[in-house]
């Protein structure tokens, strides 16, 4: 398969479809071992090597090392404080930045990282350059790294313009099922059933265990999870619908998710695709980037798929104490001022049951899982 370089299909928006693995082939063909190596940075090379590479004499190489040293571009003065913007800088960038920072100092009372910023920064950078203890877990040179934005299913009205998403890194050699298992969605934790009469009997199974089917959709192919006997082909309805009349879709196919790795996929970068689970919980997926792995990336393959960004969702608090995250929701509750009304576990029991555990008043109670539970 000839590796043509990916290019835009819609300018600046998304690319033509291509097989992911060909990108790796394309790059590996053009680069040499030093480019692909995942060792820590190479040592300074000698004059002889430079001379050989550039076709000059070693004397010139020595000159080059002096003339083109990075010291030529750095400050010759004693320790400069990079936090301090020089007073009369000739750079417009700095003059503008100075004003912006001064304004920030005037208007913000406490200028330090809030917990969301800390979370974001740490997720982005904690795994940087991490090497595994077990050498077999080390990622191979030339491996591809895909960046995926997985959007939360629409839950809140306030998110309709900028849907929240998580960002995940996956390896080209990883199976689709590994990604599927790593996606944490609140709908997986839903517990079905009304439990006002038996609040202690929280069911053993959450939805994730009960409803195991899921699929990914990329470029006309549905990749269905078929690892367990309970798994059903959720895409069958769609395929039948598309084939029932000439609806203008190409042949849609259904295959097994566990048989494919990301390198096998045929897809466009920047184009929205779909992940569906729980029958009707749908997540848009966009591949935003694919590139070769670099020695500064996390190199422990057991940590992939690697979550590097997550949208912080504010959790709904208990109506009574306003401190703890809600774990119960009631309907038609004679003891509650609102319908529905949310309670944390402690307040829920204290209000609705007596010391012996008898139900007080009339109400329906359902276990509640807040979307922000993954914060």
């Amino acid at each position, binding site marked *: 398969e000839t590796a043509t370089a990916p290019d835009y299909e819609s300018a600046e928006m998304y690319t033509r479809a291509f097989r992911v693995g060909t990108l790796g082939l394309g*790059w590996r063909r053009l680069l040499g071992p030093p480019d692909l190596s995942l060792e820590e940075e190479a040592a300074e090379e000698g004059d002889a090597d430079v001379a050989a590479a550039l076709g000059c004499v070693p004397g010139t190489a020595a000159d080059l090392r002096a003339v083109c040293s990075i010291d030529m*571009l750095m400050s010759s003065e004693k320790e400069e404080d990079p936090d*301090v*913007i020089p007073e009369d800088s000739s750079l*417009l960038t700095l003059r503008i930045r100075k004003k912006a920072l001064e304004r920030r100092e005037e208007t913000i009372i406490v200028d330090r990282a809030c917990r969301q910023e800390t979370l974001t920064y740490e997720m982005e950078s904690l795994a940087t350059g991490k090497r595994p203890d077990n050498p077999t877990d080390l990622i191979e040179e030339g491996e591809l790294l895909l960046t995926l934005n997985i959007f939360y299913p629409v839950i809140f009205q306030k998110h309709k313009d900028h849907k929240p998403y998580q960002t995940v890194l996956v390896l080209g050699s990883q199976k689709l099922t590994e990604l599927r298992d790593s996606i944490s969605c609140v709908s997986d934790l839903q517990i079905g059933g009304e439990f006002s009469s038996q609040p202690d009997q929280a069911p053993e199974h959450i939805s994730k265990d009960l409803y195991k089917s899921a699929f990914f959709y990329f470029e006309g192919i549905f990749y269905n999870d078929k690892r367990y006997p309970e798994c059903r082909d959720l895409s069958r309805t769609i395929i039948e619908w598309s084939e029932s009349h000439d609806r203008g879709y190409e042949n849609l196919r259904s295959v097994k998710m566990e048989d494919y790795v990301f390198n096998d996929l045929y897809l466009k970068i920047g184009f929205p695709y779909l992940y569906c689970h729980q029958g009707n919980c749908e997540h848009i997926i966009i591949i935003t980037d694919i*590139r070769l792995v670099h020695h500064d990336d996390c190199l422990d393959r057991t940590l992939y798929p690697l979550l590097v960004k997550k949208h912080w969702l504010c959790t709904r608090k208990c109506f009574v104490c306003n401190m703890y995250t809600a774990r119960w929701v009631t309907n038609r509750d004679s003891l509650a001022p609102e319908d529905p009304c949310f309670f944390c576990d402690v307040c829920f029991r204290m209000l609705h049951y007596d010391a012996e555990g008898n139900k007080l008043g009339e109400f329906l109670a359902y276990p509640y899982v807040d979307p922000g539970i993954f914060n």
Partner: protein
Amino acid sequence: MNEVPGLKEDCEELLSAFQQADTVRFERFAELWRQRRFHTVFYGRIRALERNKLSKKTLDVALQYFLPPYSFQIRVGALYLLYGLYNAQLCQPKQKIRIALKDWPEIQRFQQDLVDSLHYDAAYVFRRLRLARAFHFTAMPKLLTYRTKKKIEENYLKEEFKDPSNRVNSLISNDVLEEMMNIHEHYQKMKRIISADKSQPYKALSLIKDDFVVNLKDITLEHQEWQQGRMKSFQSTKETDETEKREETLLKSEGSERANALARIKYRSYSAAVEVSKSRRHRQVQLESSESGSSCGKSPSRSRITSRRPQPARRRCSSEVRGEMQVAKETVTQHIGMPVITEEDSDEGEVSLPKRRR
């Protein structure tokens, strides 16, 4: 905020100064960079998260000047700029420079150009970046998030950094002129054959100007020189200009009539190379071998600091020929005004061609 305010202006100011210095020497770039204390562009009390984003965007901005359609000199300047910015950034680990697969072959060609033209400092700088693994080898230049842009950003391009637009040359190339000359001569020959007097075609058949093709070539040549004169800001060393002119106007007959005609068509001579002093041995110029018909020639070796603009590779598809070629210019313009095409008086008996309605 999608941009770093003021950064584009600062980069362009630096590259502009580099362009005006009319050189590709790293030493000179480093001077200009130090004058502006460009390494401080990352300064300011910024926390790590914001700093990462800022540095990434800064490298992105510089990268755009490294790729076509910018001129050779600007691209070398951009290479030096990337080198400086990559190393001056305060992030740990460093933010990388993203290169898309479709752009790498062009960069490889550029690197080869540098080596072939003996621009050792530029080649060395690129090598240092590559060995430091400053690049991310990606599918596409930017992250694609399916974000519909609210306002359509035009593809920004700083005109002054581009090579002068080549439309005249691409329309009227050597091949085109040669072909026209052939057709013209063939036509004249046919006319003579059917005429009574074999040495001269019927007067009644004189429907075009005989020296049409030669005039066209001359006009094209003038246009090109005018354009170059316009782009050149200051000429510091006059003597190299004179040498250039002398080389070009040197006449040397190649013998046959056809070769003469061909010689008159080829209006660019890359023949003689000026010997540089020992103190500039980085910039030793090397004569290039001529390969007739090679359209993708290498860049002319101008690795010295003169007022002559450093030339890119491949852009001129004219073949480089050893030895002086004749360039017979019928009219010479000394000033840098737009050449005026004068109507010549028609020869006696010539039938003037009616203007074609379009």
